[in-house]
């Protein structure tokens, strides 16, 4: 889409921002323009443009703040490992029960049946759920990206093997594998569980990345890199993957949201995080019988699961819109 301004007789005058002001009918019909705003002379990389668009997405930004708050409170309140937190009560100690244990100023989330401080317990569960969710997100993204990129770039027998492997993982019911392996792995603590879940949830990302790489490898800049003698590994890491980073980040976010739910389901079924450790799912499982008499024992972890999953999904939406502005022009 070259601009008419570049037809000045003394060679093409350097003018950035052509894409934003070009009067091409198709570009305008599509509505989305990746160019920087006119009147600003700063140079923006693709990443900076994405960040600008992301911060304009109100729901995503709000979710980011809420999620950030939850993370900060979960980790600072009761501390982690040897580091103590600012919350005076512990999650293992039993206290005298006030009434039936309903939320009070001293126990904002109430107390459980045995008199434990439920706030401390829920924070502990949130910590573990978040750690598992983010680890799963990161592990599955790395595995999925690698498999997808290698399969898409090299094609041939390597692709055939990797994609059939992916198919095998897809056809096995996820919950069953996760339950069987998770039960074994939770012997190694939450990290074992996170690893196992990460190793069974990479399939959708691998397919997405492969598709993306298949189209990118036909682009001229990849051919140009090959013609110069660039090694395949450098082409993948420098030319192909940076251009599929949108797909990868968005689906990594969504993988985190589904990991939270998967961990919750597993823990609820008793295959996930095992006592004495706890997670949001384990809490719900433990106190499900108390739902009628002490509803706060269900609602606090339940609401937190909902909030975290919703926040992560909104952030994913925001990222998708930021990476591909052409998809979200329904607001006009």
């Amino acid at each position, binding site marked *: 889409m*070259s601009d*008419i301004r570049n037809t000045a007789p003394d*060679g093409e005058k350097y003018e950035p921002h052509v894409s934003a002001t070009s009067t091409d*009918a198709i570009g305008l019909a599509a509505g989305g323009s990746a160019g920087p705003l006119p009147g600003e002379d700063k140079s923006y990389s*693709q990443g900076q443009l994405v960040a600008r668009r992301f911060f304009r997405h109100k729901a995503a930004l709000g979710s980011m703040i809420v999620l950030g708050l939850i993370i900060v409170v979960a980790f600072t309140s009761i501390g982690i490992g040897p580091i103590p937190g600012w919350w005076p009560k512990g999650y293992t100690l039993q206290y005298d029960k006030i009434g039936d244990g309903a939320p009070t100023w001293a126990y904002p989330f109430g107390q459980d049946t045995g008199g434990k401080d439920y706030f401390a317990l829920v924070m502990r569960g949130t910590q573990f759920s978040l750690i598992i969710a983010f680890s799963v997100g990161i592990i599955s993204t790395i595995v999925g990206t690698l498999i997808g990129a290698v399969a898409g770039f090299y094609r041939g027998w390597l692709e055939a093997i990797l994609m059939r492997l992916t198919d095998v993982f897809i056809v096995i019911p996820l919950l069953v594998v996760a339950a069987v392996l998770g039960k074994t792995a939770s012997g190694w603590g939450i990290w074992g569980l996170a690893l196992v879940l990460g190793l069974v949830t990479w399939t959708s990302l691998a397919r997405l990345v492969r598709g993306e790489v298949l189209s990118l490898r036909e682009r001229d800049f990849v051919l140009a890199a090959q*013609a110069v003698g660039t090694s395949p590994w450098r082409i993948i890491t420098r030319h192909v993957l940076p251009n599929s980073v949108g797909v990868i980040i968005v689906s990594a976010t969504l993988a985190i949201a589904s990991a939270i739910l998967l961990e919750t389901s597993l823990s609820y079924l008793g295959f996930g995080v095992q006592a004495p450790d706890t997670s949001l799912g384990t809490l719900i499982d433990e106190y499900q019988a108390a739902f009628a008499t002490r509803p706060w024992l269900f609602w606090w972890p339940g609401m937190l699961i909902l909030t975290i999953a919703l926040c992560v999904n909104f952030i994913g939406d925001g990222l998708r819109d930021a990476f591909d502005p052409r998809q979200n022009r329904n607001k006009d």
Partner: protein
Amino acid sequence: MTTLDISVPGPVSAAGDAVLSFEDLSVTFKTEFGDVHAVKGIDLEVRPGEVVALVGESGSGKSVTSMTALGLLPRNARIGGTIRVGDKVVGGLDGRGLRNMRGNDVAMVFQEPMTALNPVLTIGDQLTEGLQLHGIAYGKQAIARAAELLTMVGIPEPERRLKQYPHELSGGQRQRVVIAMAIACDPKVIIADEPTTALDVTVQADILDLLRSLKDKLNTGILLITHNMGVVADMADRVAVMLKGDLVETGTADQVLNHPRHEYTKRLLAAVPHLGAGPGQFGDVAPVVAAPEDLPALDLGNLVIEYHRVGKPTFRAVDDVSLSVAQGEIVGLVGESGSGKSTIAKCALGLIPAASGSVSILGTDFNKMRGKELKAMRRRIGVVFQDPASSLNPRLPIGDVIAEPLVVHKEGDERSRRRRVLELLDAVELPRSVYNRYPHELSGGQRQRVSIARALTLDPELLVADEPTSALDVSVQANVLKMFTALQERYKFACLFVSHDLAVIDLLAHRVVVLQNGRIVEQGPREDVLHHPREEYTQRLIAAAPVPEPLEQRRRREARHALLNKLGDDIAELHIEDDYERPQPKRDEVGNPSGLAGYGGDGGN
């Protein structure tokens, strides 16, 4: 037709009865970056039997102007002024009125016939649809009429074609079908938006012949939108030149093309490469310096390239091609689409393996090299691709793009690389400030300069350029070609220059190789091949390339028709039987065509 006087543009009717007129037309698009003024108050009219060419480069607003006549702009457009099609004012029509008008009064011929036709419907379905909607004919009658239309546009065996799908037809035939659809309801005016841009040059000449006979025989007005000055010279009675949404000049073809008054028109015309004018149009091309005993930069010997397709027989894209490029020599590789010219370029780069034959770069066979040797050889070849939008990695700033080959071959340190990049930016006439810019911030011409700079980073002995200027506007192309010749003179690289544009090859190449269907038809020095072609195919190719001068183009057109007659081919024209009846849409009592009655009057659009 026998006189060469073109200052009077044929039988022109009085000014009052224009079939299409724009009065003070302005179009503004609302975008997230504020309002964009695409068309800024233009006046233009098209009379019956007249071709008005609307000329301009990309972004000048010419397509937007034409779309207003059909009421087909996106919702974020605001239209001012009056558009009249026949006696109807487009702005005053509701959805039903617009549908009634489209096809009946004004029809459109699009640029890309493959996307303009629906791939899942047969040709017959698509042709009869318009006839039935506008109540001209139904059922068997409509099919007979569709067959008649195909005969008119020169498609043989119309009955069989009606049952075929668009992909079963060639590009030229598809465009003929699109034209048949356009004339199905006998519109008063046809808008042809770059009708030949996607077609090969010989097919283009046929389609233009067809359009010309259409306006002569049916007295239809044609608004021809194009960026190709050769097409303008070939077709237009009157020309309107558009620049940034304004009409800067209007007049007869002779006035505008031979005596341009506006600065922009002059510049535009000066930028058009002229087939037959030879080198020196945009800077001199250095003579070849290599002594005959020097090794050729590129030598292809009996090259065969095949594509293996699953479930289908192997496709032989290149068949027994032998050519060589001497050091410091520019060899133009010419051919129509599907001739295998890009395949040969990719093979010379080592991106596609040869099925048999040899590819030698400076005396070493490419196919026998592996690993390090191959990598070392690759640094001696540079490449420039056609599409500036996809040939640069959007995630890398320009400085990194140009320095990338140095990094890959582990050459120099940070500082020397930076120095080399700045030197190359100067060489391709880009400001040094683009060093930190990203490709999306640059225009097409600037990106192509970056591509060329990247190709030259390692000082290659051979440059493979695959249609490097065909995605660019003509004045940008002129600048890039000028720079290219200057660079070639300075760096003395050999070049395999692939192009479909004979005029570009004519001003650049030392030698020319003409390809057809994967085989070499003719090769030799530029003057011999382009000015005195021996082979029939080359003669056709050259005869079909239009030049931007109406008188000369008319001479060339008549010479081409003489050549076709000699070769025993038909000249494309509209075939109209003596008893041809102009279709009359059946009207119900309110005056609406009955075919549209089923489409409620809600006007929603």
